[in-house]
């Protein structure tokens, strides 16, 4: 008989000083408090190989209003498609790249990361998954996290991705981050619409 798991509760509006103190959210009421950051929005480590990219987007609610108190977490493989976790037995300890990041949104609902573009990773039934990032969203007004995935607009492998192919074709576009060049570096734009028109696909996992 399994134990009842501890239920989720909302992250609330005040998490930033604890969970993302150096991030985009403005929280310090008088400039005198501080808290060290453990997890930030820059995943790039000096020894990480691969293409350095930025990810940026806006998260909006059912009225199209920016959500200025959300926390976006991302989990991804390295450029060789390996996860820094013991369950991935292909993982090699040759890099400090952790593959995890956290960004609180700013007052305009914008979040962002600096990272390395992930490689393709193994999928179900021996198929390969296109390069992607798992995205987990927390916010005031969300009693539990919602999961989505970010895929890259310049990847042909998307057409064969076993997870994307479970998504109705008309909604697949909500999972594609669009590549732009800004000052010579690649920025992938990934807006998240929590509810309503062009609602982002969220996963039941």
């Amino acid at each position, binding site marked *: 008989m*399994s134990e*009842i*798991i*501890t239920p*989720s*509760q909302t992250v609330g509006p005040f998490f930033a000083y604890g969970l993302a103190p150096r991030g985009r959210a403005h929280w310090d009421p008088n400039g005198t408090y501080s808290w060290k950051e*453990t997890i930030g929005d820059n995943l790039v480590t000096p020894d990480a190989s691969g293409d350095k990219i930025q990810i940026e987007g806006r998260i909006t609610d*059912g009225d199209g209003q920016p*959500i200025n108190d959300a926390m976006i977490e991302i989990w991804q493989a390295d450029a060789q498609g390996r996860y820094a976790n013991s369950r991935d037995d292909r993982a090699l300890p040759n890099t400090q790249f952790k593959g995890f990041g956290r960004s609180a949104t700013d007052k305009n609902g914008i979040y962002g990361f600096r990272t390395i573009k992930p490689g393709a990773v*193994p999928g179900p039934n021996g198929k390969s998954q296109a390069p992607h990032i798992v995205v987990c969203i927390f916010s005031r007004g969300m009693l539990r996290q919602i999961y989505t995935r970010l895929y890259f607009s310049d990847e042909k492998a998307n057409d064969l991705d076993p997870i994307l192919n479970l998504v109705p074709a008309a909604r697949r576009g909500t999972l594609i981050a669009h590549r732009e060049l800004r000052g010579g570096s690649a920025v992938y734009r990934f807006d998240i619409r929590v509810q309503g028109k062009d609602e982002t696909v969220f996963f039941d996992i």
Partner: protein
Amino acid sequence: MSLIYPKDSLSVYPKHLSPEYRSTVKRSPSQPLIVVPHTLSELTGPVYGHNAIQEHDNDLTKQHKGEPLGERIIVHGHVLDEDKRPVPDTLVEIWQANACGRYVHIVDQHPAPLDPNFTGAGRTVTDKKGYYKFITVKPGAYPWGNHHNAWRPNHIHFSVFGHSFLSRLVTQMYFPGDYLFPFDPIFNSVTDEKARHRMVSSFDLENTIPDWALCFRFDIVLRGREATPLDEEKH
């Protein structure tokens, strides 16, 4: 260790849309979530070891020049999986209001005093037995705008990782016997009484330190259990 994450276990979670908590109305997906298999991407997750924390990170009463005001308390417990096995070496983060019910956040305009000696954030990593401990002060109740005369029960926010991105949990720890429980739509968004009880710490006299601090025990059960032979057949 190879865990599975049965979705049935999530049945105790609040619904995304719980209209009594008004902010869920525009912040919950309206389309059905798409069912997908758990792949390596979900079955792995970030690992933060003991190098992620520093001395006093788990003692919220020692982060400033002086001691914070309020009732000093110890909050401790174990992080477990669904089989009651310990989850070792996992990051536990907390944040909370001060003893007056005020958060160190510019958005919090509750007219209760800030405490220059209390930020209200802490973190630790569980030991080999899944054990964690914080020293802090008891957070105060505070008003919020959900409905007329709405007050949150005393609570400490918890963020825990576990073995994979599927075991990721953000929750709130409540205190036993809080008179605000019946009126709080966030607490009551968990409709199963036993599951609600999971979020309530218990008073721990045995570990209360005489002449120094009350103690509360809060065990956290994360998603994930060992597959049974029956589960293996299904796969």
